[in-house]
């Protein structure tokens, strides 16, 4: 992805989270939020993080289950693309990629 593409993606994300925040987000449907009981794990909390222009690892704490709405879920997916470009990956993801390179499967099982 080029710098221009990343810029466009971020603009798209910005527009989408602004709309989502205006239109209301169903926090109580979110399983991660219900388990953690902390606002920053809620879909709304993550949307506010993005609305402020921050791309943080907290965006990975999401099941992508669409309980908060299909549009917002797609926005989080796009935001994760930006995170990967910025090398902000979860250790588990990095390990999975290494495993795939080394063994051809995500578990690292070498048969």
């Amino acid at each position, binding site marked *: 992805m080029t710098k221009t593409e990343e810029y466009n993606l971020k603009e798209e994300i910005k527009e989408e989270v602004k709309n989502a*925040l*205006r*239109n*209301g987000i169903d*926090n*109580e449907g979110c399983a991660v939020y219900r388990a953690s*009981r*902390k*606002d*920053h794990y*809620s879909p*709304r*909390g*993550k949307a*506010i*993080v993005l609305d*402020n222009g*921050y791309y*943080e*690892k*907290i965006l990975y704490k999401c099941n992508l289950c669409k309980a908060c709405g299909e549009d917002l879920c797609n926005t989080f997916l796009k935001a994760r693309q930006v995170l990967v470009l910025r090398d902000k990956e979860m250790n588990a993801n990095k390990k999975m990629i290494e495993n795939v390179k080394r063994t051809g499967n995500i578990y690292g099982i070498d048969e």
Partner: protein
Amino acid sequence: MIDNELVCYNTDNSGLHGNAKRILFPESIAEIKKLILDSQNIVPRGLATNIVGGCIPSGSDVFDMKKMNNINFDFKTKLVSVEAGVTIKELNEKLKSIGYEFPIFGEGTIGGMIAMDSPSFMGAYGNIKEWIEEIEFVNGRAELIKFSKSDIGEVCGLEGITGIIVRAKLSVISYNERSLSIFQSGDIEEIFLVIKRLKLEKTIAMMRLYSPYYSKILGFPEKYHIFVGFENSNGKIKGEDCDILLKKIMKDYYLMNKNGYRSSEDPKLLFEKLKEFTMFLDSIGVPYSGDLSLGIIFPFFKDDSSKEEVIRMINRINGRPGKYGIGLRRKNKVDNLQKKIVHRVKMRHDPYLKMNKGKYIDIDGTNDADNLIMELDKRATENENEK
């Protein structure tokens, strides 16, 4: 200063932004008492669904109450003891499993709903205040106080400026399978005739009025609609269809937001004034919905020009804030007498002015506060001497 992942605590559904110093997640009353003693500027926070800036921090420690989430039901007294961080949805999920429900439907935590004295989405059940038997709260002096029904005014509806609600005992009712009927008309006169008749019906839990434009946005023909909610199966729409429709109208304002109407008012009016007000809104083309059991009309605005006109009208017909509360945004709606009363209660419970600073009423500077404490102490001594 909080890190990037925690910026959501700087704001609430009002869209206003403040700055939080620390985010705290207390799990017990003892912890809350200790934290209050340690802190100088506290903002209690529930689901943060209010739209008036009721939990915007200003260099404050934000007390996120959602970790306090115990529910205990007493089958003998039929009272449920709920900690402040439980949401209405969670409470009703639990109660439904044993055949009961708490009829103050809405989005929020118990603590938040009590602090705002929120009305039920089904207006006939009134405000949450009417369903509270006892409140436990920790005031600004870090004292745990229990209030019975007669004294809950010192906490309920004061938007967290006197202390932090930690637990409440609430009355519940048996679970009802409700039903809905929809009445449609092109004539507002006819609508109000029907409403007058419906008001006499005792099994009606909700009467929601929608203006023609609002009805269109909800996906109905462009006419006036009244959604009548029954406590029994008297309505024509039942079961799953009823649930889907109720969910839709419960979040109706989001549909207005989507269509550019991002601002609204909530005047509570005498029944005799409702018709005059709705006809006025029709004449200037402002869409609205209304909870006719509570006497609240919600006009929606795209721009400020029509809003100013409507606010002038609300003032003329003595409309009082009905649902949204005061918060940061609407302190001008508190009259002088109310200000004095609230000020007195605040000073009694929060003399060091720690709790939810800048909300509901303005109290300038600590000197004023010190003077007031002295005055209150003097009065207390005088009272004791009199006794």
